[in-house]
């Protein structure tokens, strides 16, 4: 068992040497690993790295036959490089200034210690000190296997990205693994901060839209320039990008088409269209078919005129993305049972956003009390927005002129 573990740990070292591309600037050779391990015992005094890698350093034997896995050591360096640039340079200097010594040591190591066979006897202390890490899987369905070993993923987790959400998306996990934090991701993050996304929003933003990390920086900048050319202010662009993370993935032509679509379909002026899009940026990134269908429903089934639809859409743009079934049910109750005409609904479109149950309970309570009066021409008129937007206590005392106990008793008779 101990034999096998030692062999595996050796294979682990060799594998990590093969993956040299991921971790530049680390000394590669077998011999120098042992050497630098000895020299860096003082690192143990510094704050520990994430996986307790330093404890492994302490445990490693300074006699060169079994160095700790390269990966573990590199991990400690990568997480501390921001804190200890000087020590890293020291290590590099050491490696560079003594290349010939290293070469000699290499030869010495190979000559002194014959390759051990897997069936060699080793003492108990040696066995205990072997650390055999499981190998990284070549295929995996989850990012969890790679998080410990990829600094890109580690840094993203630090930012607040929820990797469990990201890995559920198509190809996003694969994309993240192939990217390098320093070369690609850092530029995009700086760009996003420049656009105006808040630091604490970066995590949720990337969770919803990890694909942006694979985008070309010039393309992103062109799109922001396009938005600026359409006279969207900087804070407005920041707001839109934060609330609709997919916005910057759309090419300039697509954004243009969509803005044009809303302008034509709703018949609004340029300024009003912009205002609409700033308030609900989801409109630009969502499906256009749903919006078209909702507009059809409003016109044909609900029977609103075009200018009425314009007003409603401008006041409550959410109606364009609402569910058709819910919209029809709410309208049916408002128009047929409560008897509210179209022009009143155009004046108070926020009723379409509220829950049907709430409207129904409150209306039935008012009808029971004989106060269900929604016509402004008549006395004791009750406006629709007061009907839906006030909280329960205020509704009972002000509008229904009854106690909340009465309302509750009434609710129990429905």
């Amino acid at each position, binding site marked *: 068992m101990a034999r096998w573990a030692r062999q595996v740990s050796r294979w682990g070292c060799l594998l990590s040497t093969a993956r040299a591309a991921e971790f530049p600037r680390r000394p590669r050779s077998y011999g120098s690993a042992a050497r630098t391990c000895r020299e860096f015992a003082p690192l143990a005094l510094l704050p520990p790295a994430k996986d307790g890698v330093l404890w492994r350093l302490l445990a490693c034997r300074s006699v060169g036959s079994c160095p700790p896995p390269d990966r573990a050591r590199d991990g400690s360096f990568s997480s501390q490089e921001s804190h200890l640039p000087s020590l890293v340079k020291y290590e590099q200097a050491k490696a560079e200034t003594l290349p010939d010594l290293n070469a000699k040591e290499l030869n010495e190591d190979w000559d002194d210690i014959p390759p051990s066979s897997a069936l060699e006897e080793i003492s108990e202390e040696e066995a205990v000190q072997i650390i055999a890490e499981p190998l990284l899987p070549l295929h995996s369905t989850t990012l969890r296997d790679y998080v410990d070993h990829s600094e890109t993923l580690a840094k993203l987790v630090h930012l607040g990205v929820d990797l469990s959400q990201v890995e559920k998306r198509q190809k996003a996990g694969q994309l993240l693994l192939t990217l390098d934090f320093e070369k690609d991701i850092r530029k995009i993050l700086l760009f996003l901060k420049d656009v105006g996304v808040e630091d604490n929003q970066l995590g949720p933003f990337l969770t919803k839209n990890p694909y942006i990390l694979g985008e070309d920086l010039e393309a992103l900048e062109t799109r922001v320039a396009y938005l600026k050319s359409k006279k969207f202010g900087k804070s407005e662009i920041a707001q839109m990008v934060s609330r609709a993370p997919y916005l910057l993935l759309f090419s300039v032509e697509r954004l243009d088409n969509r803005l044009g679509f809303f302008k034509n379909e709703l018949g609004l002026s340029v300024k009003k269209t912009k205002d609409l899009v700033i308030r609900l940026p989801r409109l630009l990134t969502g499906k256009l078919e749903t919006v078209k269908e909702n507009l059809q429903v409003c016109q044909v089934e609900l029977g609103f005129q075009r200018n009425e639809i314009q007003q409603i859409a401008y006041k409550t743009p959410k109606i364009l993305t609402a569910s058709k079934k819910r919209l029809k049910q709410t309208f049916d109750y408002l128009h047929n049972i409560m008897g509210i005409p179209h022009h009143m609904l155009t004046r108070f479109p926020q009723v379409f956003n509220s829950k*049907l*149950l709430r409207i129904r*309970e409150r209306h039935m309570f008012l009808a029971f009390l004989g106060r269900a009066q929604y016509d402004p021409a008549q006395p004791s008129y009750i406006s629709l927005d007061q009907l839906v937007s006030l909280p*329960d206590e205020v509704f009972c005392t002000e509008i229904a002129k009854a106690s*909340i106990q009465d309302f*509750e008793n009434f*609710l*129990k008779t*429905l």
Partner: protein
Amino acid sequence: MAGLSGLFAVYKPPGVAWCRVREAVETRLLRVQGPRFRRLKIGVGHRLDVKASGVFVLGIGHGNKLFTDLYNCHLTKVYTVSGMFGKATDDFSDTGKLIEKTTFDHITREKLERIVAVIQGTNHKALLMYSNIDMKTQEAYELAVKGLIRPMEKSPPIITAIRCLQFALPEFQLEIHCLHETQQYLRKIVHEIGLELKSSAVCTQVRRTRDGVFTLDDALPRTQWDLRSIQDAIRNCRLKVETELEKTLGHQDNSPFHQLDVEMAHSTDS
């Protein structure tokens, strides 16, 4: 809050699925606690379908264990069922597809009450049959006097009592005490009453006013679905639940309310 456990009743509004009600209560309770508790174990008692409304029993934490025992008590439930003469639909309710329309001027309250009495009589026979009690014994007589004859195992729906509350053509309202029922069964009863009276009827409202020991007064309306009210409701109903369980299932050493005692003691301390 971790010690919150027990049974309480809410009033389910019509037009909402019962699982939505359960989720809404869970969300309201978790909002108070914050993100520490991801999920609460909230169990449900006898379910109500979307169109029906009324007393709906929920259990939290260890209270859920009482549901099996309460089910084994086979307590009756009381419904207020409203109907309307003059039409028949495919699902027996007023929102279904219309099948036929009929006249109903010939119906009087006496005729309705006669039919209702017949229904009660036939159901009473079924009740005695499923109760598995030998009718000729003294024990049976005593139980019948106390009104405790009930089927203590699975049976088809049985109506133990039915009477007419209101009658104003074309609408009428019945109060039905029943066991092992579904709300659709009650709607079917309304439909059959219409047929018996040589007309047709649809059911406009099914409202549960009592579920076992939980009455309409115990049920919390939507405005009171918060931690404070739920704690009070659990405390108020606890005694009733225990008495009923003791009466029907007998006092046992491993009875559930010994555990519940412990839980309530903890929660009142916390």
